[in-house]
């Protein structure tokens, strides 16, 4: 780890003045050094300071469990990191779009969300920016054809645009263009926290409500020197794992549906609902909305409800075991899953993939294990990995995680610590501070970085959903694959459009 950067634990606060302000050359060199030593870029974002833009980088070091933070003033342009560090590519495109700071030498500089820059004083023609209108990469030649899919899809899914360059049934290149769901969540949080802030976080990516709300709560707790009581922390862990159970089960069913394997598709569709209902049993919302709040949890699990939850969890798990057993035990399904959509370990590492997609390539990346906070400091959930990097690996990792999450919930439910579930409200946030909070959502690493101003209000709130890292992984997985396998690969990544678009 480079000496010049500030080191933090997950969920820890630091004074802004302690974040080293480096020259661009040092900033660049330090980051590359960190990455070469096994770190990964958890967040890279711009923050307006005076007339210019200051870059903040958060690097996560899984081996030491530390996060390093550094900053540098960029001005209107700066030398791009991407040629040396591919995992910065999407971040740099975001910074260019949000703040007009141009990464010189970026190989693929295009908008990612199609909005006007946030910073005033930049040249602008004033009109709206139509999403999806950009120069797409094109392949020319005999027998090459282009297929455009979306943003309006046939299923009930979110909008996104996919451009395939194909030769017959073979895909040479896939380009993904998002931004249709951009709502301006990061901007809406500035000046907070206000009464709407937590609701914005819970709807940043609707299926990841608990993870985002937990990350936000940790960030706010760190900034206000507040802690969740033990019982609240355990409830957070339970909520997070229930969310994982529901979504992983739904995804395994959907994988079955995409290859036309009906039994698992139907059973898992119902079982996902059963898990969602367990969350509803605890807090009244199937998506866990309203359960996680700064300071702890807003709803307790009294003994009778904990017992009922445990019993219903056991029933659902035995059904999930049957449904998934059918899926992963069926030769015709395995023939479709294996060697489809392979991402190599090297590519996954270079792109900075996180979550299920990274673990399916054999990378041991799991915030619960590497940067444990809350209950995960006390109870470790083994990291589930698989080596092959294909659709099967992503399905298998989900199934392993389902079993381990269920075991974790069962273990915690019988040993819920006594005491309050939420700590007393604090006066306000510490001024001129920075806090980083990371949570392993069901898709992967959710990283929130909060910066406060002199008055203790949020000056910048950066949200990185795992989808932000992983969309490019999907594009790579499709190279030299059959175009008819795209829906299957897409489902195996199961990424969020709104979590990316924010």
């Amino acid at each position, binding site marked *: 780890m480079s000496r010049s950067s500030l080191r933090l634990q997950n969920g820890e606060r630091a004074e802004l003045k302690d974040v080293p302000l480096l020259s661009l050359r040092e900033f660049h060199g330090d980051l590359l050094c960190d990455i070469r030593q096994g770190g990964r870029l958890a967040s890279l974002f711009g923050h307006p300071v005076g007339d210019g833009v200051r870059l903040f980088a958060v690097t996560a070091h899984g081996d030491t469990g530390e996060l390093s933070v550094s900053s540098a003033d960029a001005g209107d342009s700066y030398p791009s990191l991407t040629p040396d560090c591919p995992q910065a590519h999407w971040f740099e495109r975001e910074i260019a779009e949000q703040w007009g700071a141009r990464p010189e030498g970026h190989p693929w500089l295009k908008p990612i969300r199609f909005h006007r820059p946030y910073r005033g004083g930049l040249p602008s023609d004033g009109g709206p920016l139509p999403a999806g209108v950009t120069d797409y990469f094109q392949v020319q030649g005999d027998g090459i054809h282009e297929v455009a899919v979306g943003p309006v899809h*046939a299923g009930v899914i979110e909008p996104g645009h996919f451009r395939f360059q194909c030769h017959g049934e073979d895909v040479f290149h896939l380009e993904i263009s998002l931004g249709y769901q951009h709502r301006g969540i990061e901007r809406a949080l500035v000046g907070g926290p206000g009464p709407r802030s937590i609701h914005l976080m819970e709807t940043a990516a609707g299926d990841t409500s608990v993870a985002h709300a937990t990350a936000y709560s940790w960030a706010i707790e760190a900034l206000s020197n507040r802690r969740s009581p033990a019982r609240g922390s355990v409830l957070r862990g339970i909520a997070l794992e229930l969310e994982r159970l529901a979504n992983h089960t739904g995804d395994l069913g959907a994988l079955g549906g995409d290859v036309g394997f009906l*039994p698992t598709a139907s059973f898992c569709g119902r079982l996902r609902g059963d898990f969602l209902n367990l969350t509803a049993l605890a807090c009244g919302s199937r998506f866990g909305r309203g359960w996680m709040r700064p300071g702890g949890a807003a709803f307790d699990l009294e003994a009778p409800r904990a017992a009922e939850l445990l019993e219903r969890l056991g029933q659902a798990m035995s059904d999930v075991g049957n449904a998934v057993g059918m899926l992963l035990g069926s030769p015709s399904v395995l*023939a*479709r899953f294996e060697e489809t959509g392979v991402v190599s370990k090297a590519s996954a590492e270079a792109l900075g993939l996180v979550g299920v997609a990274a673990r399916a390539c054999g990378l041991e990346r799991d915030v619960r294990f590497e940067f444990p906070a809350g209950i995960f400091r006390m109870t470790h959930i083994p990291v589930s990995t698989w080596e092959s990097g294909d659709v099967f690996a992503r399905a298998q990792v989900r199934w392993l995680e389902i079993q381990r999450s269920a075991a974790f919930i069962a273990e915690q439910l019988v040993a819920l610590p006594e005491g309050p579930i939420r700590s007393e409200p604090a006066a306000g946030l510490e001024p001129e501070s920075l806090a980083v909070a990371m949570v392993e959502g069901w898709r992967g690493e959710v990283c929130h970085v909060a910066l406060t101003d002199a008055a203790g209000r949020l000056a910048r709130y950066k949200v990185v959903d795992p989808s932000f890292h992983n969309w490019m992984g999907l594009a790579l997985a499709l190279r030299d694959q059959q175009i*008819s396998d795209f829906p299957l690969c897409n489902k195996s990544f199961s990424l969020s459009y709104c979590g990316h678009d924010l």
Partner: protein
Amino acid sequence: MNWAACVPMAAGLAAAPLLTSVINRTKAFFAGRQGPPLLQPYYDLAKLLGKGAVYSRTTTWVFRAGPVVGLAGAVGVLALIPAAGLPALAAFPVDWIVFAYVLSLGRFFTVLAALDTGSAFEGMGASREVFFAALAEPALFLALAALAILSRNLSLSGILSGLQPGLWMEKGPALALVVGALFVVLLAENARIPVDDPNTHLELTMIHEGMVLDHCGVDLAFIQYSAGLKLWALSAIIVSLVLPVRAGSPALDSAAFLAGMAGLSVAVGTVESCMARLRLLRVPALLLGACALAALALVLVLR
């Protein structure tokens, strides 16, 4: 005119959509659901027939002709199919070649209509359809040729009506091979799993559904109805082979035939419920396998 000859065709025209229903109910059973009502395909057809159609400005008369020619082809094919020991409306020597190519004529126009839209999805669907149809055709021909030699008869009606249960004792292996090949052709021609997934909403994986994405209203009703007729025609051939019941009474023969049709649909639904769809790359291997079965049958009967 012999009115009895109209019966197989009339039965096909009236009952063909029921086969889809039986398949869907079977799949629903395996999925732990109740499934749609048995008459749902008829409701759907009635609904679609009551709707207007939208035509893209980029399409020409070819696009409008596609469903009509497709339906005409399917009805024409049905006229050649005997059932339950009753001869077909039309029967003449080597009519099974006409059967195969009238079926192909309908497909040809469906493909042209798909290409006429200029849509990438329809183009991909059309290309896959033509590729797989070309591989399914030899299997169909070899199987029918083996049957013709086996029964020493040249028309479909002659082959299927003249079939005696005793033939299974004599030539069982060859017949079984023919039935296996025809079953694969049935799955491929009717866009069933493991070749195609009729329920998918994923355009990139579609074959038959991909070609008809732009059709609506009456045109779509025609397409769905002709798909039903095609399923009926091919199923009728298989059922006549497997259950050559000649009880002497038309009522008993018909009951056995209809039960056979329902049983075959259940079998198709069971296949769909028990296995995933093949990767598109592997479909040719399945169809070539069907060709090999049929060729082997031909060798056995020539021996």
